[in-house]
């Protein structure tokens, strides 16, 4: 039981506990906090995989901006405790079965076709910021510029949507 396996199982367990807690909590703010736990655990897993820049970006953008947006909206809309109607209680167990089947099928397919692949630790040196930025500005420069345009459109859209109506 090497040290990396112990760390992997600890972080994976934390992520799964956070995800299950997202479902089991009644108040949306507790679900949001569970999702933040999942994201921090995933950032730890990225560090274990040698992707330092992606781990830092995950915490800064996902955990520090997107989830803050969620928490703000939950606070401002004063979202209360959630009620479960008859339909949703009925959909629970069959939904669980179907989801387990779906996720199991996807995972089994991927695992079977890539079972010979063993992780190499070479990306540690290349996965520095200079490696990623080289790829971003050479091979992926077109999608990169498009995403900046996408963010501009999203900012304008969100501003327009959330305005109060002027009578």
């Amino acid at each position, binding site marked *: 039981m090497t040290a990396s396996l112990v760390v992997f199982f600890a972080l994976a367990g934390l992520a799964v506990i956070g995800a299950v807690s997202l479902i089991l909590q009644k108040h949306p703010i507790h679900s949001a906090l569970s999702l933040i736990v999942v994201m921090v655990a995933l950032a730890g897993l990225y560090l274990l995989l040698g992707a330092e820049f992606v781990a830092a970006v995950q915490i800064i*953008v996902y955990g520090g901006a997107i989830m803050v947006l969620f928490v703000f909206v939950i606070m401002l809309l004063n979202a209360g405790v959630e009620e479960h109607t008859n339909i949703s209680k009925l959909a629970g167990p069959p939904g669980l079965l179907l989801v387990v089947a779906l996720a199991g099928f996807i995972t089994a397919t991927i695992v079977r076709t890539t079972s010979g692949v063993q992780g190499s630790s070479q990306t540690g040196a290349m996965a520095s910021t200079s490696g990623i930025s080289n790829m971003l500005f050479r091979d992926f420069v077109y999608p990169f510029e498009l995403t900046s345009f996408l963010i501009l459109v999203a900012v304008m859209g969100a501003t327009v949507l959330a305005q109060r109506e002027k009578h």
Partner: protein
Amino acid sequence: MVPTNYYIILSGILFGIGVFAFVFKRNIITIFMSIELMLNAVNLAFVAFSQAWGKLDGQVFVLFVIVVAAAEAAVGLGIIILIARNRQTLNVERVDLMKL
């Protein structure tokens, strides 16, 4: 060295939990959060394969996924605020008719 399969299985589990939360929960903000959980599961698979093959394409793609998720979250939450303002409820079962 952790085998890549372990990461894929974890990614599959998280994706499955995300799908279950999407169909089971009734609060629209929680449904939106389960979408983010699914995107994160996919990101984990990308980074795991990037390390397995020794290339950086996976990590660059993860950056794009994070950016697109941010843009989607901003617009989606704007729409949610509008729904809450017009229907005074956050329960998706009460907004299933186009008539107010």
